[in-house]
């Protein structure tokens, strides 16, 4: 039976206290803080980092599909799922799909994967969102950035699917057209009272009925919500105990993470689940999605690579709205005019750039990056073996560069000796410069370097390993 084989989540390191936003506009703070994607992050990088954790050491060749969900895809035309698949080293003969334009794209992708996954194979579902509320609006405080990933399969499942249910309903509560930079919501309680509350009720009641279950059977309900208060109101009359049975939405620490939110909440619910537990996940948008999973014994052996809770604890606070504005290019400062790129090189070198392959000399065994034609160590010609480089290593040397223009100075350049061999030279991110020292342990994280040629130039950066 199909189910969840593994999962991952990604909460960016930066947080913006809502009072910082409120102070900027002379508004009331909604309280708490929201997660902010770093300037080098977007919906795709957050989804990739969650996916790398979800896949773990599993063979990427077992993937029959990679699905990406977002309302903020990096490209208007150009698939993101195939980029994720390439980073993960999935086989080329698989199905890759982007689920976009609806807030429930994350749960829809998950349910589609459950429907489609062939016996013995897996489908990776990932989501990332970095939605933009208009400056000086409540949405700006409300939204948060995050990524999530679920590996769906039929063998060794942590949680098997009991049932899925969808109600598709035309509704206009929050939208963004081709021409609009920011999301717009109809003022007042129209969306919550006439949309959200009704669709959540329909989804929860629908799935319970379909699965022949009662609210009391549910151990934990991971329900997407624009805000914790909104969810509390929607739960009225559903028979679910908000405290005991419903996953906190992390509104106070992360915010509404769009399509990624239900996957993050599901991950949090699963991280604390016991065998036999029934987990309900609900997505909202243009109606509602719902699925119920039964946790198996396999869960006792499972540990998430990075738990949602530990990622919420590790954070760096943004002290000013200006920093956030620069991260999200609200003030279109031309600091990247010198960035050069070409799709030709990105395509030709994709094995080095995306899954970070290096070369190993068959003669002297030196692992090197990039993949040279001639071994840099012994001169052996034209036969380096392509190898996947480790995602962890030690800092060999570095500098904090105050000359390079960046939204988050200084730029830290790092020479890293990777575990198992190979030396890479990348930038560091998400770190306090004063804590960087030679010999420290680093992990690689997938990031966007720049947007030269009007394209997204993704590659790896390094950040301190948070213990």
């Amino acid at each position: 039976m199909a189910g969840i084989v593994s999962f991952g989540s990604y909460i960016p390191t930066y947080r913006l206290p809502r009072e910082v936003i409120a102070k900027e506009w002379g508004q009331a703070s909604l309280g708490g803080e929201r997660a902010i994607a770093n300037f080098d992050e977007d919906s795709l990088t957050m989804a990739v980092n969650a996916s790398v954790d979800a896949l773990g050491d599993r063979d990427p060749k077992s993937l029959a599909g990679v699905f990406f969900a977002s309302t903020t895809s990096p490209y208007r035309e150009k698939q993101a799922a195939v980029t994720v698949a390439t980073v993960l080293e999935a086989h080329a003969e698989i199905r890759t799909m982007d689920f976009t334009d609806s807030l429930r794209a994350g749960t829809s992708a998950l349910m589609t994967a459950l429907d489609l996954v062939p016996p013995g194979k897996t489908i990776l579902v990932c989501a990332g969102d970095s939605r933009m509320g208009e400056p000086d609006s409540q949405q700006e405080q409300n939204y948060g950035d995050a990524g999530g990933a679920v590996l769906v399969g039929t063998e060794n499942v942590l949680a098997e699917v009991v049932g899925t249910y969808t109600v598709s309903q035309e509704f206009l509560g929050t939208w963004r057209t081709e021409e609009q930079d920011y999301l717009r919501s109809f003022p007042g309680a129209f969306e919550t009272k006439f949309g959200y509350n009704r669709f959540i009720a329909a989804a929860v009641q629908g799935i319970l009925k379909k699965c022949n279950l009662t609210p009391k059977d549910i151990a934990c309900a991971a329900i997407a919500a624009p805000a914790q208060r909104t969810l509390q109101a929607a739960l009225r009359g559903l028979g679910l105990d908000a405290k005991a049975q419903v996953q906190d939405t992390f509104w106070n620490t992360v915010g509404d993470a769009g399509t990624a939110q239900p996957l993050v909440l599901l991950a949090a619910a699963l991280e604390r689940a016991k065998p036999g537990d029934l987990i309900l996940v609900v997505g909202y948008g243009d109606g509602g999605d719902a699925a119920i999973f039964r946790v198996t014994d396999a869960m006792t052996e499972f540990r998430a690579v990075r738990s949602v809770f530990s990622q919420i604890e590790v954070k760096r606070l943004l002290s000013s709205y200006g920093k956030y504005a620069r991260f999200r290019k609200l003030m279109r400062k031309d600091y990247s005019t010198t960035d050069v790129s070409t799709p030709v090189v990105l395509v030709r070198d994709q094995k080095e750039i995306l899954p970070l392959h290096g070369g190993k000399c068959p003669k002297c065994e030196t692992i090197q990056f990039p993949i040279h034609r001639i071994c840099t160590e012994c001169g052996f010609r034209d036969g380096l073996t392509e190898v996947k480089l480790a995602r962890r290593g030690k800092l060999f040397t570095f500098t904090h560069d105050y000359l390079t223009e960046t939204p988050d100075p200084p730029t830290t350049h790092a020479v890293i000796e990777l575990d198992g061999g190979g030396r890479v030279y990348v930038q560091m991110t998400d770190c306090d410069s004063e804590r960087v020292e030679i010999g420290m342990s680093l992990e690689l994280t997938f990031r966007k370097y720049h947007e030269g040629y009007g394209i997204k130039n993704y590659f790896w950066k390094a950040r301190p390993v948070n213990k």
Partner: protein
Amino acid sequence: MNIRDKVSVIGAGCSKFGENYDMSAEDMIVTAAFDAYTDAGIDPSQIQAAWVGTLSSANAGNALADPLKLFNIPITRVENYCASGMDAFRNACMAVASGMYDIVLALGFEKLRDSGQRGLGTFGNHPVVGYGTTAPSLFAMAANRYFSTYGIDKRALAKVAMKNHHNGTMSPKAHFQMEVTEDQVVGAPLICSPLGLFDCCPTTDGAAAVIICRSDLAKSFRPDPVLVKGVGLAVTSGEPYLKPGFAYTGFPATEQAAQSAYAQAGMTVKDIDLVECHDCFTITEILNIEDLGIAKRGEGWRYVEEGRAAIGGEIPVNPSGGLKSFGHPIGATGIRMIYEVSQHLWNKAGARQVKDAQVGLAHNLGGPGSVGCVTILANQ
């Protein structure tokens, strides 16, 4: 083949180095070239071939042909990162040594201040691999590695800046004539940690030129030609940050070029009376001192701190003020070093004159320490 004693420098010229907002590249090139012609006592029509070093200020032999109106002779533009100047000199020397030409011109120049850029900007052509690398960042990574290996800190670097700024006060053509204190250097704004503003050479305009001729003809131009004893060039990986095992505590390109030059000259470091080396950053001078064999590994900083590299010390290093104080118009620097060493060998260096200088070594370094060029000159 050994180049020793086959060619001589018979004239040298140099423009004022600095923020030459009032001078074009043409103005500086003409000044340096005609200073050199006059110094050698030759007419421009006697130049049979020329080499010009520039990183990015012009293309092709036209860089010289047009400003100097040197038409219809062979002119080659040389680009080898920051060692472009000395490599132009080296190629000129080899052409004369081959017997192909009797008298040639080697000129280096760079016009950096016409652009508003700080330093040289970023390097690299790849969209993401090595993205955003700046010149100071490459040497700053060496500084941090050197610090961690030998347990020293920024104060050691400051000694280099203080010495070279002091020497610069005696160099009228230098970019800076200004002393700096240790606190000033250590407290300056960071450019690339640990390198602060005063650890970095300035962004400078300038040009320098030398006239090279067959040694057997040299004395018909002047009684005291400077003999070229050896010229070495070595090129290593331009991506040391990706090179497995690269230690970041020295530059093998310098070591190799120096060994080659010493071997041609039949000399060792003990024979050297003064050194002009490539102190693009203070850490670089410390590494150069070790790479050239002046001090042992890990002792270069001490050599400076103990005053052994000062004028009047064991082997004065950068009596001109070096790149740090004289300035570093990229393509000009290697030729400017030949100019400087020649001034000392001719006993014309004024207040900064190294006493009884008979043998001088000049060292030009390019890229992230990947292009090393070393020349040994002597007055007999």
